[in-house]
């Protein structure tokens, strides 16, 4: 029954065969997960955010489990753009996986440099711009928490990226008005929006009586934050009816994914759930297809934003 649903997802100029992607930082560059499911079957592999230089990340402990969630403070550990291109991107290309490359920088220039370096690389379906990282030029304020900073980054990345490659700005929920930031990114040239990144959290270890993470605070992810994520997608879909949205935050099964689609996401990323079930992205693709079929949808596209419809009782 489920194979009658047209599962293609439209993300700006790119059409993916499945609306389920991995989430940045939760799938490395796809290779490890390929042992558990065929990474070419899902929508795309979204790679761990890459920076210009190699980066050690933070000391351990880097994680703490929390109720229905987890905190992480990895600190964007990675090999730097050159090794990423020569190893990870190459593997993904040779494997035939669609790839969304996530980039992160500490300054507008670094983002520009990354975009520039990736410009002529093949096999990149889209760029995801992780603006939820601190701006070293602005006392460490996170780009995504300031419409102007966010907009400068997106503007620079757009200028250094070919028109055929869509740019998704990845938003943080830790703002007073997420629609405001979304609007700023779109005005600056973002083709779509990814949301949400983790929300800032903290655990105190009651044995050591110190913060549980070496990094003190960390990013909260998993089902615990799903209601917040669905709310963000809903608000931004309302404010920007035509902008493609890649939704994420606590998706662990097909019905969770359906919530995001109904709230207005055009596709979804699966992050933390992969740690429990390494084949989660593909399982969720299938569960979502079945859920759509059960509800009589002919295509995924028909379900996008369906919860916003005005009919019967006016919500």
């Amino acid at each position: 029954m489920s194979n009658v649903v047209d599962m293609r997802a439209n993300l700006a100029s790119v059409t993916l065969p499945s609306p389920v992607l991995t989430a940045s930082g939760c799938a490395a560059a796809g290779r490890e997960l390929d042992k558990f499911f065929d990474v070419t079957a899902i929508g795309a592999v979204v790679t761990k955010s890459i920076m210009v230089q190699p980066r050690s990340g933070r000391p351990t402990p880097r994680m703490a489990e929390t109720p229905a969630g987890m905190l992480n403070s990895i600190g964007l550990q990675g090999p730097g753009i050159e090794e990423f291109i020569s190893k990870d991107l190459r593997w993904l290309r040779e494997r035939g996986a669609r790839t969304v490359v996530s980039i992160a920088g500490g300054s507008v220039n670094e983002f520009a440099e990354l975009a520039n370096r990736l410009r002529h690389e093949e096999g990149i379906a889209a760029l995801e711009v992780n603006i939820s990282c601190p701006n070293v030029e602005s006392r460490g304020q996170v780009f995504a928490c300031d419409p102007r900073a966010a907009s400068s980054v997106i503007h620079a990345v757009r200028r250094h990226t070919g028109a055929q490659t869509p740019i998704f700005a990845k938003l943080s929920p830790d703002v007073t008005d997420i629609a405001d930031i979304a609007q700023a990114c779109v005005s600056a040239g973002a083709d779509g929006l990814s949301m949400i990144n983790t929300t800032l959290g903290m655990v105190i270890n009651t044995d050591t009586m110190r913060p549980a993470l070496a990094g003190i605070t960390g990013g909260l992810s998993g089902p615990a934050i799903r209601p917040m994520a669905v709310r963000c997608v809903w608000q931004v879909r309302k404010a920007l009816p035509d902008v493609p949205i890649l939704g994420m935050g606590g998706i662990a099964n097909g019905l969770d994914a359906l919530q995001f689609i109904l709230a207005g996401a055009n596709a979804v990323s699966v992050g933390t759930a992969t740690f429990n079930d390494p084949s989660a992205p593909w399982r969720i693709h299938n569960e979502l297809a079945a859920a759509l079929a059960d509800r009589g949808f002919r295509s995924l596209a028909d379900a996008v934003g369906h919860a916003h419809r005005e009919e019967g009782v006016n919500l």
Partner: protein
Amino acid sequence: MASKRFGKPDAGPIQVRGEVLAVRRSGDYYVLVFAAPGVAEATAPGNFVAIAVGGQPTAMLLRRCFSIHRVDTAGALGGTVEIVVDAHGPGTKWLVERAVGDPIDVIAPLGRPFSLPKDPVPCVLVGGGYGSAPLFMLADRLRERGCRVDLVLGAATESRLFGVVDGRRRASSLTITTDDGSLGTKGRVTDVLDRLLDDHGGQVIYGCGPMGMLAGLAKVAQERGIVSQCAVEEAMACGVGVCMTCVLPVIGSDGVTRMTRSCTDGPVFFGDQVRWDSVGTVPSDCLGAPVSATGGAQR
């Protein structure tokens, strides 16, 4: 001293639905026996399993990791696996409360196992607390190759030793230490190590246990110019190499220190590869270490 590996690379892990066959106490620990089709055959000593915990819908998202203690490929149920569980937190408590016949969701075998020496050299195996769990399988493999195996088990107190009876049967010698002297020599495993190495000419030290103990073993090995292999235990979110939570500073074959995943590049490392003093920090000469002391705050 060379730090090349002389064993085989790990086989790929599989995710299977296991079934609990038995849960029994052993001192302060529990031994959990389960059927897990396909796992036993592929397991080498030092591999670990990652098990999903909590009844659905649970608040515990992350799998719990355990060294594989024993495997039996002859089981009627397509291979059985045993682990030793220290039930101190909610996930491990849940696990040891399973009843016979309960399903469990298992990913295994994970990680790089211990490398085995080509030649029949004498080996000393050192286990701290439940850290001894993987050493009995290792002892069997080593003895199959003609290696002498001296086993050292250490713990804070008698009830926190694991495998004393088994150890006597399977090793050439068994030495026990406890911090409180409740069994064996009062003291630390490292206190008895030199004598053992002197007496039997040990060429490789294998260890599994707390970080401090492993650091001690690595130091002894280094001082003697012999090889040590240590199975570390870092908090892991995924166990399969995708999350980067389980890292520690490890020196690569190029001499460069990197924050290295203990789930896929370990849990077994050569003792001289690990920057023991820097575990829990990012050494300033690590690849990509922050330039300033505090670094750019980043999540």
